């Protein structure tokens, strides 16, 4: 009786991409915020080369995380404000298909911002950030907090203080992802031997998996009236 799971998730993702391509509401605000933050960091932190190597991954992840929070809030608010979340819930679909569709959309937007930042930061901080392992860490890290963020944004979007509530709830929960991502990124940028840091991406894989499973299980309870 239900619409096939992946068909429903794909329809939701396709709708999000279609809406974004037309309005550019999410990517423009996330991108502008991220670029401004990077510029401010680059001018505010007068660092020598060694200090820069230590700080740059923190700058990257702080910027990506906060830009993503901005996008997550807007993405779910768009569903809530016009009652569209209810319209989706009225359809004969598995409710976790809504989570998967929204998650992939949010993840792609966060990843786009992360990928955009790498060349910009390479120029501004005079240090190459375009490295395969760093790309892998970016892919894993953004997946982790996009997963937690999509679930929590679905909860907070129903409250009045949604803009402030999401970071308050999300940052402590996403901390393992951010710590592992920053540690791995710092080591990669400092050319530390792989054996000394490979545990961090492995931790990211495990944390991502745990978050994905938990968020899929919890989503139905989160959207219940």
């Amino acid at each position: 009786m239900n619409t096939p799971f992946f068909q429903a998730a794909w329809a939701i993702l396709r709708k999000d991409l279609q809406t974004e391509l037309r309005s550019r509401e999410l990517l423009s605000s996330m991108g502008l915020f991220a670029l401004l933050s990077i510029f401010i960091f680059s001018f505010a932190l007068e660092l020598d080369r060694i200090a820069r190597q230590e700080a740059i991954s923190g700058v990257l992840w702080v910027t990506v995380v906060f830009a993503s929070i901005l996008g997550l809030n807007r993405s779910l608010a768009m569903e809530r404000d016009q009652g569209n979340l209810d319209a989706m819930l009225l359809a004969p679909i598995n409710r976790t298909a809504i989570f998967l569709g929204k998650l992939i959309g949010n993840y792609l937007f966060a990843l786009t911002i992360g990928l955009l930042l790498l060349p910009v930061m390479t120029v501004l901080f005079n240090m190459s950030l375009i490295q395969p392992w760093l790309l892998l860490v970016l892919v894993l890290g953004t997946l982790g907090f996009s997963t937690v963020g999509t679930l929590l944004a679905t909860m907070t979007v129903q409250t009045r203080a949604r803009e402030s509530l999401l970071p308050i709830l999300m940052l402590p929960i996403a901390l393992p992802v951010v710590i592992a991502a920053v540690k791995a990124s710092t080591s990669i940028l400092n050319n530390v031997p792989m054996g000394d840091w490979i545990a961090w991406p492995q931790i990211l894989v495990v944390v991502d998996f745990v978050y994905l499973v938990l968020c899929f299980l919890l989503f139905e309870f989160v959207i219940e009236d």
Partner: protein
Amino acid sequence: MAEKSALIEMRALVKTYDLLIVLRKLDLKIERGEFVALLGPNGSGKSTLLRLLSGLSKPTSGTIFIGGWELPREAAAVRAQIGMVSHRALLYENLTARENLQFFARLYNLPQQDIDAQIRLLLERVGLAKRGDSLVRTFSRGMQQRLSIARALLNNPAVLLMDEPYTGLDQDAAQVLDGLLTQAYADGRTILMTSHDLDRAARLASRVLILSRGNIGYDAPASALNGQQLSERYSEITSLATAR
């Protein structure tokens, strides 16, 4: 699946939010093809009842059957035969009318080859055939509500739930909506509509219910009372409930 004669049946339905009792042991049957107007003051439980029937909310206790399927246990089967129109448009403003309907058609798993024809038909029916490729954000409130009805009819539902669909409509738009509802009723759909407009309810519906403080205070065919009499009865019931 249970065999029931009424299309919609509620038994001892209770809904509470923390300590607030919204619906109190409601028993109600609605036959196939009825047009029921559900009246009542704000906070009487009308919208809550519609949310329960649509599966958007779960009852605290009691049972609901729609087309023989039980809620919330068989929610997916129930949702497939329901269309809902609310005072909010439930549409994406940055998509065109056609794109909105295509999105919901995919969610309802309509056969791919039928989607375009079905959308064309519905857009014509609600008078938006020429605006199918316009963005919804450029639509007036009345046009959005007509598109909302097209969305609700996409899956050819047996039951239409309308939660104050006239909110914010001007007189012309309200008349267009009257026509669409009359047509849906003539097509044999079962309609349950909440409203504050007693005259319109008496004119369009086949049966009128007045909900007051979570109970049904009045239940009769719409023809039993004229607009004026219904208004008097409504005041009597709602003021009694307030005095209690």
